């Protein structure tokens, strides 16, 4: 039973891996600045929409990868250790710009989106009310 589950899991992983490979090949072939994995993601979305791939076929492996998404970034973030000298010289101004602008961006993006969403909801409710009258 455990072996069967492992085989299913590997098979599902293979589908995701294959889509990623196809995405990479397409990106190189089309020569566009969109990364292969993002193209693979769009491909999978289209395949799910059109019903070519069923969600059940990839559910277990996908849930596992998404649950541990942070893990895959760890080896890259560890690369910060190579920037010691730059941080010693420019650490404070860099941190100021990096984190200041990111905080600004996070709040602004959320605020714009929420404002537009709430306006739309108000307009919709008004529309429904007008219909009732």
């Amino acid at each position, binding site marked *: 039973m455990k072996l069967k589950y492992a085989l299913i899991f590997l098979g599902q992983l293979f589908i995701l891996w294959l889509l990623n490979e196809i995405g990479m090949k397409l990106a190189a072939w089309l020569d566009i600045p969109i990364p292969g994995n993002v193209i*693979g993601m769009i491909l999978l979305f289209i395949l799910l929409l059109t019903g070519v791939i069923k969600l059940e076929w990839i559910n277990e492996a996908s849930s596992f990868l998404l649950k541990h998404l942070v893990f*895959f970034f760890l080896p890259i973030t*560890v690369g910060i250790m190579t920037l010691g000298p730059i941080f010693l010289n*420019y650490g404070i101004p860099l941190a100021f710009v*990096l984190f200041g602008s990111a905080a600004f*961006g996070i709040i602004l993006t959320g605020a714009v989106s929420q404002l537009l969403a709430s306006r739309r909801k108000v307009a919709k409710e008004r529309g429904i009310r007008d219909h009732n009258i």
Partner: protein
Amino acid sequence: MVFVITIFSIIATIGMYLLALKAHKKYPILLMTPIFFATTSIIIILLVMGISYEEYTLAKDIMTYLLGPATVALAIPLYRQRHVIMRNFMPVILGMIIGTTATIVATVYMATWIGLSEEMVTALSIKTITVPIASEVAVVIGADASFVAIMVVLTGMFGAMFGSVLLNWARITDPVARGLSFGTISHGIGTAQAMVEGEIEGATSGVAIGLTGVFTSLIIPWLLPLLV
């Protein structure tokens, strides 16, 4: 020797990751954000053991092998939440465009004002897009790709650690708006954290990674010369 170092590095990374998850569950405070806690402890272990990042590279390549397929899997929350996102099409698109553009402008002005070199300003301007797109764009605008990658990673870590706090403070409660913020500014690392908040947040954040990356790569070549 390479073999031993690589095996040790992989075990240390997985171990610190699992420890970070446990620690965060027990003490859900900022310093315990898994990406921050795990990264710092892995760096400390490598430094103590005298392993350089170069020696860690093979372990890194092995462990990040599934990052591509994991990104592909982001299509699933997107598929499940497609109706929610389509219903919020304008808030998502306009939020992303305004947020991204304003952040680039703010970054360039802040960096120039504080006196960073033009090289650094250029590299910082694309810090909100995912590493695989950023490294392509870096070549186009003539920035140092590995420096860009680290700036991207730091921005992601910042978003993962402070995103929820900042959004709560600004009273942004709409799950679509919250997810959009995470993905637009802090790409994949922020998305991993957005997934923890909820599936709608995770899905919107996943969409935002691609949207922001594509949008930035289209506008930055002509926007940057106007600002610098």
